[in-house]
């Protein structure tokens, strides 16, 4: 492996934050491998986003402004990424560990006959050999996997793993030719946005989650949302809250939801069963608010405040806003 290629996930030209993290990581990894750093951005809005990517330390930004990427599921994006990877030669391809990133990465790996690592939180180098560190079994174990038997490796990187950093690069914009003779099979007939565009729990550096103890749907658009907003974070939920229909599955943290590694995780009215713990145990700091001092989360939270969440949370929002100088 020599070059490093970052797949830029975006919607209509608005990049996910992790995309800039990958663009930066591509540079650092390429320097270690002695190769070039590439980014691949495809779909509606790609051309404008490519200009914005010039602020990052990349050698080449490969672009295809092609409506097919948005009209058909996954395959067109994989085609473009595959074309760039094959032209670059032996390479490490970085995709975000998100729904789209895993879909694109898994298909690309199959096409390239490449090794595939998921939910990677660290990349290390042993000579020219690349090894990826990922938590497995719900964060119980940490595996380190190296690539072998292939010129390519595909790495799905957990958001918040690398810091995005602007910097000078050659930033040459290269148009990717449209692959000829393709018939795409999966049509996207309609796209429905149910929730306002907001930072997802996977990418947020602060997550405020609610569980059974919050008692209903209102706190998810009320006191929890207000606290998350004051901290610049996202709202998460336990399975109990999602199963009760209080908040959508996209917010769920845990075994059957998303795995998150924010700097700060605030668990409100969540007991902390193992199924929830595996989704958030790698958070930097965990603060829990619960009326019961004997809940399991007390065994692994950095701070458990025992009290009435309906009193504590609004008061906390007020004090956070004061501390940050935000209007009340």
């Amino acid at each position, binding site marked *: 492996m020599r070059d490093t290629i970052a797949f830029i996930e975006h919607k209509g030209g608005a990049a996910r934050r992790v995309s800039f993290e990958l663009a930066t990581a591509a540079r650092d990894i390429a320097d270690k491998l002695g190769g070039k750093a590439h980014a691949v951005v495809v779909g509606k809005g790609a051309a404008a986003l490519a200009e914005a990517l010039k602020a990052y330390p990349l050698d080449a930004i490969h672009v295809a402004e092609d409506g097919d990427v948005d009209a058909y*599921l*996954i395959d067109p994006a994989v085609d473009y990424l595959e074309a760039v990877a094959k032209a670059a030669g032996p390479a490490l391809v970085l995709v975000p560990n*998100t*729904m789209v990133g*895993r879909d*694109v*990465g*898994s*298909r690309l*790996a*199959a096409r390239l006959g490449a*090794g*595939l690592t*998921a939910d990677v939180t660290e990349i290390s180098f042993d000579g020219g050999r690349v090894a990826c560190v990922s938590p*497995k*079994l*719900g964060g*119980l*174990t*940490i*595996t*380190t*996997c*190296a*690539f*072998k038997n292939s010129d390519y*490796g595909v790495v*799905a990187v957990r958001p918040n793993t690398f810091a995005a950093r602007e910097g000078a690069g050659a930033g040459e914009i290269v148009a990717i030719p449209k692959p000829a003779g393709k018939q795409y*099979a*999966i049509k*996207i*007939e*309609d796209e*429905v*946005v*149910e*929730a306002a565009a*907001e930072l*997802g729990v996977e990418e947020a550096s602060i997550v405020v989650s609610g569980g059974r103890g919050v008692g209903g749907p209102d706190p998810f658009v009320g006191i929890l949302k207000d606290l998350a907003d004051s901290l610049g974070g996202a709202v998460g939920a336990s399975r109990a809250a999602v199963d009760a229909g209080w908040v959508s*599955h996209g917010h769920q943290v845990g*075994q*059957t939801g998303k795995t998150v590694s924010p700097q*700060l995780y605030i668990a409100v009215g969540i007991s902390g069963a*193992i199924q929830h713990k595996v989704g958030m*145990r790698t958070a930097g*700091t*965990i603060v829990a608010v619960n009326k019961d001092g004997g809940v399991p989360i*007390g*065994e692994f939270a*950095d*701070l*458990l*405040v025992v*009290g*009435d969440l*309906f*009193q504590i949370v609004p008061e*906390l929002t007020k*004090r*956070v806003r004061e501390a940050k100088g935000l209007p009340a």
Partner: protein
Amino acid sequence: MKIVVTVKLVPDTNADKRIDPGTKRLVRTGVETVLNPFDEYAIEAALQIKEKLGGDTTVTIFSMAPESGKEIVRKALAMGADEAVLFSDAGLEGSDVWGTAYAMAQALKKTGFDLVICGSQSTDAGTGELPGALAEYLGVPGVTYLRKLDVEGTTLRGERETDNGYQTVSTQLPALASVTKSINEPRYPSLKGIMGAKKKTIAPLTLAELALDRAVGSDGAKTELLELAAAPARAKGRTAEAPDGATGAQIIVDFLKEKKLL
């Protein structure tokens, strides 16, 4: 129509798992193996399609697992599937995601299918990358993260979850679909189902019956496990009583400031 549901056997999440420091492998003794919880949604989705379509629609459970996985496959049959294929071979041991997808694809081609349904991820490795790679090696459309799945004639329609909503998608069979937990509420096996499952066929399939042109198992793998370590345990932190909201909020504010998070 032939629907094949892929299922994986995983260690029970509730079990107390530990790593053997010598072999660096998971100590499996005393750890119960269960059906991957995500796969129950896939089985339920298949059964609902079968019930809707009727006729000659069948549901086959497919698992790449050791022989010892038979009893768990039988549990999947007890939910109401018609038959099962257990893809078992010493040569598959040590397969990575790539090798698993490649070998499973060849085995599924041999088994035959109109529609393959997968759970969206497993609770152990949890990469969520198998369905996509499998679709690629099967050479069929792969429609992932479905929260709704309908089949009419040869057309598959579904609602695919996104981070802030869903997409309505359609494709033609044969195809592969992966489903999320929002799609249904998996049924519990009935007593009749459990009794009936004992008589159902679990057909063995081995590598000898497939003509693979690439090495699988640990030799063919594209990744190599260098190290398996227990994650550092999180230490128990402080507990503080908050008689009222103001006290509780101030304890948290002070703590966040101490941690330089505020």
